[in-house]
């Protein structure tokens, strides 16, 4: 399988400069290795900072249990699943797994239509301010991965429609920054809130990014 690589830009927080990054339409062994050997120790470092700062457990990352090796293996070879990786400075900065076949739109104006469903989206620990990295390394990882999901949706004929269940700590980002519609809690998915993006919302999100 060939991997498509696009050139994108991330904001390096310390210098305030945009730096070149690579967006891959796959999660390869190198990404799993980065997650295992670089993300895990950084995550532990962040948890150490939270402990030292006496941060309440409620502010700790809610995706500590995510296992990208397992997720990549589950997607392997399935046409309905796709992984994405964002690489900068030779290191994986973000990962995303999407499903194109198992979910349907729920918003009344697009009910039953196909969409790209984001199963998991994660930023590298050193890019996450909630882990008390000061300053964080890169900004824009989540946005670029969301753009990749929208572009995939457009390529598949889904017109930019995207859906996901958000962890409580990410709800505000999907609601405010992404402009997705909050459809409330879903008891079938651990009581997580379900968010959906229409074609119009997708266009608005892309335009917002272009004007930055």
């Amino acid at each position, binding site marked *: 399988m060939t991997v*498509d690589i696009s050139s994108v830009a991330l904001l390096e927080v310390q210098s305030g400069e945009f730096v070149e990054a690579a967006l891959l339409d796959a999660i390869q062994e190198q990404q799993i290795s980065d997650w295992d050997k670089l993300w895990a120790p950084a995550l532990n470092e962040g948890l150490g900072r939270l402990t030292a700062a006496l941060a309440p457990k409620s502010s700790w990352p809610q995706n500590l249990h995510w296992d990208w090796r397992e997720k990549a293996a589950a997607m392997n070879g*399935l*046409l*309905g699943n796709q992984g994405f990786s964002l690489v900068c400075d030779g290191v994986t900065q973000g990962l995303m797994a999407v499903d194109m*076949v198992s979910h349907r739109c729920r918003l009344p104006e697009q009910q*039953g*239509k196909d969409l790209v469903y984001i199963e998991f989206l994660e930023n590298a620990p050193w890019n996450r301010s909630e882990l008390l990295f000061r300053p964080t390394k890169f900004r824009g990882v989540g946005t670029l991965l969301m753009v990749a999901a929208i572009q995939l949706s457009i390529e598949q004929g889904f017109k930019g429609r995207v859906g996901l269940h958000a962890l409580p700590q990410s709800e505000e980002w999907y609601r405010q920054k992404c402009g997705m519609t909050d459809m409330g809690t879903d008891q079938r998915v651990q009581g997580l809130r379900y968010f959906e993006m229409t074609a119009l919302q997708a266009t608005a999100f892309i335009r917002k990014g272009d004007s930055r």
Partner: protein
Amino acid sequence: MAAAKKTMTLNLTDAEMAVLEDLCEKKDLSKTSVLRQALRLYQLVEARVEKGDKLFFEDEKTKQKAEIMML
């Protein structure tokens, strides 16, 4: 970031074409997109059945389940 594609000719009966066109209308998708989705779904079902999973349809209201026999 679109993958390279290959072209094929597909011969369908009138009934099959009618179903395809109906799905295109209902799903707001092109014929190619509908067939891609069908292939993905078929592959997913095959992979799950091969693992020993069963395929069910459940009535949302009555919770009654009907198993689809995949032999």
